Structure formats: C-alpha cells, structure tokens
C-alpha cells in the first residue's frame, strides 16, 4: 500500500463514524482517485473457456480494450463468482488498491479521475454524441445478445444453460439457471423486447449496425485518429459476436454485412491485443 493510502484509510475510519455509508462510498472513490494508477490492478471476470456468456464476454472485452487504449496495466483474474463479487452485480470489475469499480462506465469515470482520458480532445457535442452511441449499443446490441442467450430456446439449451450452470453443483445449477433466466426475461419485458420475434431482434441489430457504420464513415476510429471508449465498446461486442460459436450464426451474418465495422474491430485487435502476443 502506498503511504498516502493509509492516511486515506484512517480518514475513512473517521468518516465512518460520522457519516452515512453511501456518502463515504462516494468520498472514498474520490479520495482514491487522487492516487496514481496502482501496479496491482486486477480485472475480475468469469472463466472464459467454460463459463462466460456472450453479453458478459463482450463487456469484459470492452473494458480490457479501454484499459489497453489508455495504456494501463492490469491482470485478468478469472473467478467463478465474479458476478456476485462485483459491487454492481455485473461483470467485469476492477480492483485498484482498496477500491473496486464495476462496468465500463464506472471504470471510465474512475480512470478519468486519475487524470487519464481518451476524450480530452473532443468538444462537448462530440462527447454527448459518443454517449448517445454508447447508450445505443447498450440498449440494442447488448439486449439482443441477452435475448438470444436466454430467450432463444436452442441457444439457451445448448449453450447458455450449460455454461451458466457449469460452476454450480447439481441441483443448484438448475436453480441458478432458472433464477437468472427469469431475471433476464423480466428485464426484457420491461424493455418491451420479450414480445419481439427473433426476426425483429435481428432487424434492430441491423439498424444499429447501420447507424454505427454511418457514424464511422471510413474514419480510422469513431472520432478521428484516436480511439475512445465508444470504440472499445463496439470492439467488445462485435468481436465477441464474430468469434463466439453459437447454434444460430445469424448475428455474425448481420455484422459481416458492414465491412467498415469489421475493419475497425480488426484494427483494434491488431493494435491493442496482438501486439502484446508478439512481444
């Protein structure tokens, strides 16, 4: 622990006695932000080979891409209970010193707090533009992934239930699968996606890809020569969709219709992931 961390810890102890917890949580995040990026940052996610599901994998990869774009060191730490460990209940999350932060948005904010940002050069309009596209991916591509994993019978029976239940003993695997499935369906119902047919879902994805490809418009990255968190998020989702074998490969077909997006994904992979392998 760096020397100022102990001071922070003590401050927190004092605060704990006089303030309600949510306030301390926020304060501790802000206090933690003053530290430089620690060396032992760990990124927790489910097991890649036997456990992780398409949407989770996409989000984990997006965070990894973002951290690599920022040139920040981290180690991937696979855990079967990563989801339960996460402060928001969703993967991935990082542990930097004493602080845990989950999901891309939170991690971006945490990194920004340390004075590292990919969006420094963007003006306000571009920033809000970027946020809008990120929301679009969250609300369309991610939800479509959830739909295919949990609602489509074939995918659920052949892939999702096997992988999601793989870390639990019998009969807990069935209980957990059912519980998770009903949670996801509840969420899809709220978003009015549960009543959609699979064709309508594909149409939504296609529209989203169309919009992204128009925005990209043969540029190197979405906002010029430097990547942003939007590029990381697009990479996470599209790369996972292309490389994950599923009983239905219609999603891959749709994505493949947009060569500019495919090129972006390939570019980011070469730039940030392959380089490491060669060294």
């Amino acid at each position: 622990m760096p020397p100022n961390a102990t001071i922070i810890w003590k401050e927190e102890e004092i605060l704990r006695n006089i303030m309600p917890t949510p306030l301390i949580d926020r304060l501790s995040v802000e206090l933690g932000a003053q530290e430089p990026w620690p060396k032992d940052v760990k990124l927790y996610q489910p097991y890649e080979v036997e456990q992780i599901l398409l949407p989770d994998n996409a989000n984990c990869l997006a965070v990894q891409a973002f951290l690599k774009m920022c040139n920040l060191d981290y180690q991937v730490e696979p855990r079967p209970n990563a989801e339960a460990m996460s402060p928001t209940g969703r993967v991935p999350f990082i542990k930097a010193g004493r602080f845990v932060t989950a999901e891309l948005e939170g991690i971006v904010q945490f990194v920004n707090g340390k004075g590292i940002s990919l969006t420094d050069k963007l003006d306000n309009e571009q920033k809000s533009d970027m946020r809008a596209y990120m929301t679009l991916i969250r609300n369309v591509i991610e939800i479509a992934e959830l739909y295919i994993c949990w609602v489509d019978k074939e995918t659920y029976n052949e892939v999702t239930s096997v992988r999601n239940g793989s870390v639990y003993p019998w009969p807990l695997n069935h209980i957990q699968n059912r519980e998770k499935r009903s949670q996801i369906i509840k969420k899809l119902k709220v978003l009015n996606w549960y009543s959609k047919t699979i064709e309508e879902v594909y149409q939504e994805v296609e529209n989203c890809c169309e919009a992204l490809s128009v925005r990209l418009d043969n540029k190197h990255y979405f906002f010029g020569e430097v990547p942003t968190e939007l590029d990381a998020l697009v990479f996470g989702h599209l790369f996972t969709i292309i490389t994950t074998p599923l009983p239905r490969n219609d999603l891959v077909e749709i994505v493949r219709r947009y060569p500019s997006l495919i090129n972006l994904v390939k570019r980011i992979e070469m730039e940030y992931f392959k380089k490491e392998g060669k060294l």
Partner: protein
Amino acid sequence: MGVIHAKVLDETATNIKRFSKQTGIAEPLEKPDIREVDLENIQVTVDKINVDGLTRTKDDIIEDCIKDLFQAQHFQEVLLKAHKARIKLEELGCFKNIGVYIDVSKGPKARSDGLEVTFDVKEQRRVTGGVTTHIGNNEGVLLVGLRLPNLFGRGEKIQLEYSHGSKKTSNFNCSFIKPFRGKYRPTLTAAILQNQSEWPNSGYKQQERGILFDLGFYSNSLFKHNLQWEGIVRNLSTLTRTTSFDVREQSGVSLKSSFKHLLSIDLRDDHIFPNTGSFVQLTSELAGIGGDVGFLKNEVSVQDNYYLFDGHVLQASFIAGYLSSISNTRKISIADRCYLGGPLSVRGFETRGVGPHSDGDALGTNSYWAAGLHLFTPLPFRPGRGGFGELFRTHFFLNAGNVGNFNLVKMNKSDIIQVLISNVRISYGVGVALKLGNIARLEVNYCFPYKFDKGDQTHPGIQFGIGVQFL
C-alpha cells in the same frame, strides 16, 4: 379428590412424608383429629380410567400415555403415575389443559379397593396462531405464527412461522412435526426454511433457503439426540462497498448439504439461573455429501454449577470447536468458520471481535476454545427478596479464550498446544443479569478486557447482552 398440579416434579416418597409431617405439626391445635397417613400402605387398584373431552385425538396414543397407571399397587404410586401420565399427555401437544381426578370406583363391577381415575382434557383448536415477541441471540424478534396442531389425531402438527428481528434478520419456516410412539420417544421434523441474516462484524449478509429433516430421540431418559440433514442454498453478499476484499471474494451462491448430530444432556435445575447441575452438548457436522461446501465441524459445550451458600452459585463453563476441511475441491465459506467474542461469549470484546480481521471485518478461524468462571449472587441487600428480586442476579465473571488456525493432521501436538495457549485473551468484569420470562437472560456488564491481541476489537466498559445461550 382434586387436581394434580405439574409443580410436584420432584415428588418422592420422602418428600411426601415430610410434607404430611409438616402439615401435621403446623396445625395441631385447630385440627386435633388429624392423622398421619402413609400413602404407601394404602393398597389400591385402578379399576377404570376415563378420558373426557376427546374428539379427534386417536385412542391408541392416549392408551400409550395412561396404561402404566393400571399397574399401580398403592395410592402413592397412583398419584405419581397419574402425574407422569399427565406430563406425557401434555407432551403430545394436543391439549390446552388437563385435569386429573381420582375417586373410588362405583358400579356393579367395582372392587372394594378400586379407584377410578378421570383425565379431563380440552383439545386444542384446529388452527391456532398469534403474534408474539421473543428473544434470539442478542436481538429482539417479532414472530408471526400459525399452527395446525394435532392434524391427524396423533400429535402431528404443521407450523408456519415468520419472524423479523431487530438486527435485520428474517426467517420463514414451514415445518411438519410428527411424534412417534415408543420408548425412545422419537420425533420427526421436516421443514422448509428461508433465513436472512446480516453480520456487520464480518461485513456480509447471508440468505439461506433450503430443507431440513430432523429426527430427535432419547437414548435414555437424559440423553437427547438429534440427527439432522439439511440441504441449503446460501447466497452470501457484501454489506457495503467498503467491505473488505477478503469477504467480497466469498460472495456468491453455494450449496451446502450436511449431516449433523447433536447430543445434549441437561441436568440443570433451571436453564437461565441454574443452582446446581451440569449441561453437556456435543455437535458434529459433516458437510460435503453433495453440494460444493465441505467440512467437518465438531463443537463441545460444557457447563457445571455449584451451589455455595445462600443463593451464591459458582458456574464454570467451557466451549471449544474445531473445523477441518475434507477435500480441496469443497469450499469452506466465511459463514462456516469459527468466531469468538461478544456479550454472549468472551465478554469485553466486540461480537466476533477475537481473531483475525481484514479492514475491520472478522474473518474467523478454524478452531477456538473459551472458558468462563462466573459467580452469581443475589442483589446486594436483597431488595424484593422472594419475589421480583429473584429475577435478578449480581454477576462476577472471568472469561478466557483463544482462536487459532491449525491443522490437526499436519501439525504435531506440541505445536497445536502452542497455538492454543499462546496469546490467550482474558477479560473480567461485573454486572447484573436478569431473567426474562423463562427463556432468556439479559446481562448488563462492565467489562475489563485484560489480555488481547493487536488485531482484536475490544469492548471495554458497559456491554449489553441478551440471549439464550451464554458462555
């Protein structure tokens, strides 16, 4: 001839003689014609037993309870056996109140020394229930319950309970209880349960959902056994964002399937403020036949009481436990580990305050021992003597204990003893204990932690404890 009350539990031949002597001496002038009667010399036979007020209770279980009475030879035996029969009837849990009447038998077949015993019972309603408050370990609990007693006429019952505690625990429990006939008095319980509890001292909360089967029986009149199997799905999660990462790592769902054996021998004259007698409880739990949680946990609890003089009682108690892992693939979670400290165990420390902590959260160990020496005395100057004052005791205590992580298999004996005796925690203090109903004890103590470790969380000064089982 009147009602026999349940108070005469310790009724023996000598006691009754003494009683009759005492009454004879106390009022000799007003009733000069009183005679001393030795009940053992009155030869009688029981001709007839009536049980009034039965509607849905089956005859066979009633017969089991009362048939001993026919073997009585003399009048005193009739009284004792009638009393025993009454207790047995009470234990069935089918009746609200039971009256016993003994009369000389009448009718054409009556023998000259014949008696007729009548049990007047009132059955429980089909559905009973209510809202009550009771006391759990260091918390107050509101309990809403619904019971269907004597469901099929043989003492079976279904019980639905929901309780909510002041420390954010909540329990739901639906159980079916079936007592069986026979000399071991077996009782089978099957239950579905859901418990929710928060452990701020360890920074986690836990939800348990599962099923439980319990077979209780007596191997003789004093040795009470419980054989249990439980299958529990446990969901552990952190309480706050600042919970220690060592605790955070444990979050998630696990399945525990465990067999448990409890043996208890209770010879105390009272549960709350015993004057004399001892209590021994042995618990063994083996988890890991199915599920992903696996361990073997053995615990022992011993208490002995010595009556000194004039309401002064010396109590010595000892508890110990050892948790061992049974395989590398089965995990032991923070909820299974051993903890020490708090107003119910080693006083003068926070709850779970003894032992290793990480960022203020107690992590637990795999073994512990603790001992207590208590001197209970009546309140100074004895206010409310014989009445209200009897609910209170002054209380001097000396507690000691230790926790440690060791492996019985890998470490040799001297090392283990080293772990157990090095760094022993000691605390002492004085306080007032109060008996609440006949179920719980409340203690307000002033504690002095005398020996403790750097990592421990002590609680010097006034400590408040309320609960059922104390060290």
